[in-house]
């Protein structure tokens, strides 16, 4: 089912939770709505499910006006963060719920319902748990039952609200891969809400970044990470250095660092803020270097260095892969040569820069 959302706005009292959302979702996509809490992503999901209504805008699914349908008739499977399983029903009866509430004339016979429930429980790897009650299951198991329950109505679209938000880190990681695989198998258009960037990156085909009721950017994980559309997105994805630089005749200059590897810009001379990710900076021990390592924070994959540079208010954060860091003899107090490998600026200059980038990419092809 392809979904077309236009001009969607929602207000609670004076609070404008959604301020004009335009989004189209092609059939079969696995889409993440990523944003901080209060950014409106859950409200959008609830509107799609028919659990809330917008003050303005439209939602069309395969051309049909969904806002004219109540939740019962949309066939949108909804999964809550806290599962919302029916505690007085067994796992099997929970999954069967959407079938047993059908009007008698279209309700499948009991044997068929039982067969379908068994198939779904196998699908979510809960085949042996049909006769248990929700209270006897772990969080991860409950969430899988909730998903099977949503799938039982053969939903046209699957809506997941922070589906793994209440689970332990290890289980959460397991379930991400599992959800990805399930989506590949079923092909159901799926939209899930998350505030966890890693989760969105790992699962989704495309990501919608929310900021304060607006869509900041829509794109593949690569797009969003490599080509953030705004300072907001660049910051939201975490770990970005904002470095004071001068732009002169298309070249960046950063005091104490080598910025000559950065792409030429077209026009826009003056002071700018360069957004540079920690892994886009290289450092090497050099007695004549103008940077000084102030702290070393070892991580599992890479090592993070804080490097002070002349004329920067904040120390710059630099990530080196463990392999690259090996043998470089870098520790707190070491003087280093700092090289910026990539970076981006926003505002008037950003547009020209991205245009330049695109023409470069085109010429590379």
């Amino acid at each position, binding site marked *: 089912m392809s979904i077309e959302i236009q001009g969607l706005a929602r207000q609670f009292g004076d609070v404008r939770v959604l301020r004009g959302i335009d989004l189209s979702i092609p059939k079969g996509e696995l889409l993440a709505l990523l944003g901080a809490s209060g950014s409106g992503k859950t409200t959008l999901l609830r509107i799609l499910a*028919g659990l809330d209504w917008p003050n303005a805008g439209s939602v069309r699914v395969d051309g049909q006006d969904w806002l004219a349908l109540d939740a*019962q008739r949309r066939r949108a*499977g909804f999964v*809550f963060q806290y599962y*919302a399983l*029916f*505690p007085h029903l067994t796992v099997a009866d929970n999954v069967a719920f*959407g079938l047993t509430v059908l009007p008698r004339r279209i309700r499948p016979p009991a044997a068929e319902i039982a067969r379908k429930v068994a198939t779904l429980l196998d699908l979510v790897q809960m085949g042996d748990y049909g006769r248990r009650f929700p209270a006897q299951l772990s969080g991860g198991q409950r969430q899988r039952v909730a998903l099977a*329950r949503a799938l039982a109505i053969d939903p046209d679209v699957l809506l997941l609200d922070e589906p793994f938000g209440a689970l332990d880190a290890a289980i959460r990681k397991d379930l991400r891969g599992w959800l990805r695989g399930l989506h590949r198998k079923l092909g159901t258009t799926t939209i899930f809400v998350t505030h966890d960037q890693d989760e969105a990156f790992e699962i989704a085909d495309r990501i919608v970044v929310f900021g304060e009721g607006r869509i900041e950017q829509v794109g593949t994980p690569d797009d969003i990470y490599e080509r953030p559309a705004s300072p907001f997105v660049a910051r939201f994805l975490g770990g970005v250095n904002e470095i004071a630089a001068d732009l002169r005749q298309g070249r960046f200059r950063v005091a104490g660092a080598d910025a000559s590897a950065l792409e030429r810009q077209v026009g826009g001379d003056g002071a700018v803020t360069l957004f540079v990710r920690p892994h886009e900076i290289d450092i090497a021990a050099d007695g004549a270097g103008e940077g000084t390592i102030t702290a070393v924070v070892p991580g599992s994959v890479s090592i993070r260095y804080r490097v002070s540079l002349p004329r920067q208010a904040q120390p710059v954060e630099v990530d080196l892969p463990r392999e690259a860091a090996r043998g470089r003899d870098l520790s707190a107090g070491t003087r280093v040569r700092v090289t910026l490998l990539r970076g981006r600026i926003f505002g008037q200059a950003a547009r020209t820069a991205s245009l330049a980038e695109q023409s470069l990419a085109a010429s590379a092809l």
Partner: protein
Amino acid sequence: MAVIDMPAPAERAARAAGSPAGARILIGIAVVLTLAFIVVPVVVIFAQAFARGLAPYLASVTERDTLRAVGLTVLVALLAVPVNVAFGLVAAWAITKFEFRGKKFLLTAIELPFSISPIVAGVAYILVYGSNGLLGPFLEANDLRIMFALPGIVLVTIFVTSPFVVRELVPLMQVQGSDQEEVAATLGASGLQIFWRVTLPNIRWALFYGVVLCTARAIGEFGAVSVVSGHVRGETNTLPLQVELLYHDYNAAGAFAAASTLTLIALATLAIRAVIERRLPRTGRVGH
């Protein structure tokens, strides 16, 4: 629950008092006061009721007017309790599942019968439904008798007992939220299906508990009923009114016998309450 938790506060009290001796004194005072004010009077009721043996007791209890009073009391409870169950469900649903203007006011208004003296409720009903009351001329013109008759007794009983069911349901339903109902809606369940298959099973024990408390109070209510009943022997006297009447007739044995039936109902309520409380999910409802 409450039973298991009891040692903890006692220990804390002991520490607060600074010594085991302090704890013993506090516990001693609590026990003596409980005996003096609660246990002894209840025991006396039964002692007096059976003072002259079983046969006179049975004779008193099965006396015609007393039996009539028991019948009327049961009838009033049978009429008033279902009304309050329906009212309680609707009100609790509205309060916990919807946001609307005046919600706080509604919550406060529902509790009003608890804070108002029952006799005021009785008088208020007279002022509305009595022959000189607001609706008096209309009722008389249509030959409807509400005051000093069954309808009046039922109405004031409904008023006095109306908070019980709501008060049990609202905290529980607030804790449970609407997630389950919303999921059921997305799964295609109609409003009625959601109520019967999702909401009701979740609140059944709290609802039952509310019904038990509501029934106990409906049976035991004296003040409000006393104002509107008219005290017609064997006609509009409920059991509590009958107890008072027998007592004023210097029929102590009869009064105590009738009182003992009321007390038995109260003890049964306590027993049911103890059983249910173990089944109620934790809702952060402390004491009560």
